[in-house]
């Protein structure tokens, strides 16, 4: 296809233009092609998208997920159109739609399974939102169990979505490892050391733990020296400015067992500070300096915290989302 064609649907407009059937199909095509590969992930997506956007956007998701759900079995455009119809109009062909939705539900369930509680809550909220704004189709979109014919009105659909909140426990292979790490942290560091814990499914089921800032140094020592965890290798340290707060992410690895962990430490944005773990892993030294330099996060306990990339007299911290260069011409 030509370059112009490739570019057109790139803009967020394809969400706005959801009402037009022609555009709708473009959207379908776009993701339809990828559906075979990414079906599972994609069908999980609407929940996330939904939480952030309006019901209008929600509706565009419908054909995509529909195509994904039907997979190769049904001719794609047809399936997409049915789903699109279903999403736009009131329950038109209930029997047919039910089938699609059931398949969809199965897929979505699988995708949902390992989702963390927070996300589930978010999804439920999104479902309710969608239900309120878009009526039943939107709700049916968001709630896996909404496939039941009872989803005709917004109320039950919302409820259905909510009952899904505790999805069947994720059968992630790394769940036991995560639970054990959390248990150790609670027992040996402090009761309140862990803020939350989850499995990052997309990232090879990476156990991810949010550790309370005040407990981080102790927790780091535990990770480093506890024989079960034995995370002797600090792969990577990243600072992220989430605008509401700052986060430092540590990717840990045990070279002996090959186990990976991601630890996140959150700090407020006005005076961000996270205890330095340079005494625990020497490699954190420059990483922390870099984060200090580019994001302005303080690392108390660091032996030599000064800028590393930018000149010493640089004003501001460039990787912050609200960074404005002092001299725009530089």
């Amino acid at each position, binding site marked *: 296809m030509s370059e112009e064609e490739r570019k057109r649907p790139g803009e967020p407009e394809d969400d706005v233009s959801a009402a037009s059937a022609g555009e709708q199909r473009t959207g379908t095509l776009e993701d339809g092609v990828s559906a075979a590969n990414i079906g599972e992930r994609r069908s999980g997506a609407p929940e996330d998208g939904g939480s952030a956007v309006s019901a209008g956007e929600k509706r565009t998701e419908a054909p995509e997920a529909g195509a994904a759900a039907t997979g190769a079995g049904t001719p794609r455009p047809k399936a997409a159109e049915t789903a699109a119809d279903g999403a736009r109009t009131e329950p038109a062909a209930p029997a047919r739609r039910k089938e699609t939705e059931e398949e969809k539900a199965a897929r979505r369930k699988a995708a949902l399974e390992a989702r963390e509680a927070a996300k589930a809550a978010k999804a439920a909220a999104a479902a309710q939102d969608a239900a309120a704004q878009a009526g039943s189709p939107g709700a049916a979109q968001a709630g896996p169990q909404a496939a039941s014919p009872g989803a005709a009105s917004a109320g039950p659909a919302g409820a259905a979505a909510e009952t899904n909140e505790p999805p069947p426990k994720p059968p992630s292979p790394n769940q036991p490892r995560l639970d054990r790490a959390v248990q150790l942290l609670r027992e040996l560091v402090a009761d309140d050391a862990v803020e939350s814990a989850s499995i990052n499914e997309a990232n090879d089921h*990476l156990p991810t733990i949010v550790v309370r800032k005040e407990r981080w140094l102790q927790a780091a020592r535990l990770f480093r020296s506890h024989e079960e965890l034995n995370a002797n290798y600090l792969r990577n340290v990243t600072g992220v400015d989430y605008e509401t707060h700052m986060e430092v992410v540590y990717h840990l690895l045990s070279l002996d067992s090959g186990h990976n962990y991601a630890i996140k430490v959150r700090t407020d944005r006005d005076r961000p500070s996270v205890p330095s773990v340079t005494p625990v892993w020497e490699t954190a030294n420059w990483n922390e300096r870099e984060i200090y330099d580019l994001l302005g996060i303080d690392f108390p306990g660091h032996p030599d915290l000064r800028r590393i990339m930018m000149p010493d007299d640089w004003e501001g911290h460039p*990787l912050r989302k609200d960074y404005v260069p002092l001299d725009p011409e530089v």
Partner: protein
Amino acid sequence: MGVIRTEELLLNVGPQHPSTHGVFRIIVKLDGEIITEATPVMGYLHRGTEKLAESLNYTQIIPYTDRMDYVSAMTNNYVLVHAVEKMMGLTVPERAEFLRLIVMELQRIASHLVWWGTYLLDIGALSPFLYAFNDRERILQLFNELCGARLTYNYMRVGGVKWDAPEGWIDKVKDFVKSMYGKLDDYHALVSGNEIFLSRIKGVGAYDAETAIAYGLSGANLRSTGVKWDLRKNEPYSLYDRFEFDVPVGRNGDCYDRYVVRMEEIRQSLRILEQALEQFPPEGETMGKVPRVIRPPAGEIYVRIESPRGEIGCYIVSTGKAEPYRLKFRRPSFVNLQILPKLLVGESMTNLVTILGGIDIVLGEVDC
């Protein structure tokens, strides 16, 4: 007997100095000829890649990765597209994945050749450099035929590669691999047994495995201490689990072991290439089915691969938009360089160049 009064000398090396292989500066305190303190100064090549990436879409970021480790742009390409593919759950056609693997291994050889040539140049042997660059040039020529660039390839795409191999290209690579084995033997004959060379690098800049791990070293810097850790084996990506190859390790963690490990890695790369070229699918797609607009679902991911210099990682935070919310590269050169001040204390000034060269850094990657 009178003692000659001495005083500490502060010496500034770089940022423009041939032995630093780029714009790297190090301030050393000298007591006579012995280094008592070393302070690296970086950032001369900081371009803010991570900041720039936040306003670019994923395809637009790929050329920026070329310019990080410009001696090994193919692996940089790969780490980014691999991260995005993983986030989106895309499958890459086999032919494309084979092409990627072949160029990555060729790149590893090219990169090690640059290192070998310049390292010997640092130490004072001029001619190996010419041999190394001659062979590296053949690899660059192959890349040039494949994607029209010698250094900054911009070759990989999310879901595949930009260009299919031109006709006869695979045969040319086969020829190269065949002849490279012999060249490698020549290199060993030319340098590896040289008495002067050995006395310059044996036992210099040594550290043990525990230190290497604490400093987060990776690649040959880690393996020279005897830690058998290669991401191609330990956390396989791409098609590496299909091929047979060994992970060479050292024992003493000195410059000599790093030299041996890297030279052996060239041979192992040739082995991988041989097998990959044999199994290369004669036809097929080079681009997978990818949405027109690449929007990874909201979430985050950290992927890592084995670059010639060690573990190169890519951490992406996506909010479901076409641009990353945060993109961070874990650059092996940056992390590996950290051990330098520790290694330099107590060494003589001449060994500064030996040790720095032995770490094998690329400044584009250190500063990013």
